[in-house]
């Protein structure tokens, strides 16, 4: 299991488009993927889950990957956060 901490950097937060990107990317991997925010944990392969996080710019999130390809999954998902989902910051 790998845990990573990320910050939402793009201005608009995890709105519809970034949420879709996360879910689509995560679904390519075998590993389970969870996102924790405050005391709340959701399945990162669920668009409804990611949307209910209501993560705005500046939110700090814990990403949890668990499975055979957890390294690759972590790299891919953290990459999305680092690039701010290709959106303005």
């Amino acid at each position, binding site marked *: 299991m790998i845990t990573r901490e990320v910050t939402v950097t793009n*201005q*608009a*937060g995890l*709105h*519809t*488009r970034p*949420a*879709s990107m996360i*879910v*689509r990317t995560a679904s390519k991997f075998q590993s389970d993927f969870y996102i924790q925010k405050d005391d709340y944990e959701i*399945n990162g*392969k*669920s*668009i*409804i*889950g990611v*949307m*209910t996080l*209501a993560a*705005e*710019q500046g939110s700090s999130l814990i990403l949890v990957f668990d499975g055979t390809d957890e390294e690759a999954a972590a790299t891919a998902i953290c990459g999305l956060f680092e690039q701010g989902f290709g*959106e*303005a*910051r």
Partner: protein
Amino acid sequence: MNVSPEHTHERKPEHVVQGIGVSPGIAIGPAFLFERDHHDIERYEINPGEVDGEINRFESAVQKSERDLNKIASIAREKLGEASAAIFEAQALMLRDHALYDSVVEKIGKEHCNAAYAVASVLNQHRQNMLASDSEYFRERANDLLDVQERIVRHLRRGKILSAVDHDSIVVAETLTAADIILFSRRNILGCALDYSGSTSHVSIMARALNVPAIVGTHGISQSVESGDQLILDGLHGRVIVNPTPETLKRYRRRLDRFQHLVSEHKQIVPLPAETRDGHRITLRANLEFAEELPLLKEYGAQGIGLFRTEILFLMQGRLAFSEEDQLKTYRRIVENVAPETTTFRVLDLGGDKMLPLGHREQNPFLGWRGIRVLLDKPEILFPQVRAILRASTFGPIRILLPMVTQIWEVERFREALDQAKAELREEGQPFDEDVPVGIMVEVPSVALMIQRFAAAADFFSLGSNDLTQYTLAVDRGNDLVAHLYDELDPSVLLLIKQTAETAERHGLPVGICGEMAGSPRAAPLLVGLGLRDLSASPVFLPEVKRVIRSMKLDDAVCLADQALAAPDARAVGQLLDEWLREHAPDLALLLSGDPGTEENKQ
């Protein structure tokens, strides 16, 4: 207002339902009642033996919903751009989301309840979470879940939704989403008539863009009409005639022919100048809200953009933090497309009836924190927008328009902000046009009454006739109890328009009008007669306005305006305009005449 709620099954009487025409055209055909039925999802028990069947029904509803949404997303991408397509793509993803799909299957299996109830109850939980968010954006996204729910439930109930919308029917509904109308337009519906939503709502804009005649704000047509009722939808007058008599039908068939004839003539009129018979040129500009509407400028012969409302851009972005770079991209595309003509950007006009709340409620929003009042209090919104507009000014001529100005100091404060933005850009080495004009909306009587006070502060004026009317007459036209008192033709409103036009001219300042009135061919001679030479309206209305202008002389128009100012009330003004039109543009008069009965007498 529905006149006859009776449901006699023998011969239903003809009755007229009045609304607001948002997309012109005439349609004749059977009604199709499109019901939104999320209100009454009941729970009922199913037998254990029926569980598999119920799950199969759910799966098939999900498949159909997926197909719908993929189709809607691709049409939205083409017509409205990536941002709105993303919303439908996300909805499509939600269908197979285990938080929805697996939970519903599990619930059906465990609780032996019907699929529709399982869907509603699962989604309701998630929706509550989103509604609890501090962010307006995420609270709004809870509506996505509701849309998804409705879509699945509709498929569960009827088996299929869209094939139920017959080709060549007129869709009647409480309200529609932009997605609905996109899909319906592909089924070649003839038109639509809705209980709710305004002329600047998404669905109205889509109807215009897709050339579907549409009427909104009927307040209850979906209650007084049944599927299969014969309808005449008159988008020119914002009127639906239910169960027309054979005589009415005959009359409207002729009208339809004439309308189609006029539309074909519009093609010829588009390249011609908007010039009166005695050689006075009138500028006809377009009111726009989406970059995707830009092709309409050429199609309908608009000379640039007289009003680009930026609210929808922010709304589609999802929140107020619409970055300077993203705004610049959109503004640049618009300006490049419109150049060498001018683009007039109105800075964000929040408040009033504009649906972009800042987590904020007011007792009396139209007299509250709106327009420039909000912007001056919110530099974090003002600056990115002003900087983006300035930077876009290197790609073509631009004007900036300020909404809801009531004080001179508001314009001065805005100019200070503008100067500061310019200084920053200079320092950063960003190019921009140093002389971008700053104008104000004239939409409050105090401004119109003493417009000379603003002559030193503003570079141009733009009359917002909708708000000017409602503030002058103290009528909220969204309020059914008093909406009948709202009329832009009220002589008091006309007097304010005339004063504004005359004073602006005396000070050598450009003045135009960008309210709905500017798109009315009936009002065009009056507005020109009152002294306006610059009209801006939704592009689809421009060919007819131009036609009227080309058929009149300025002296006659001035004479008409004088008569109107002396008239006792709006009704009398309306009669003057109708008479005038019958005399000067009889073809158009027949189409536009206020009362369909009078037309028969004229023939």
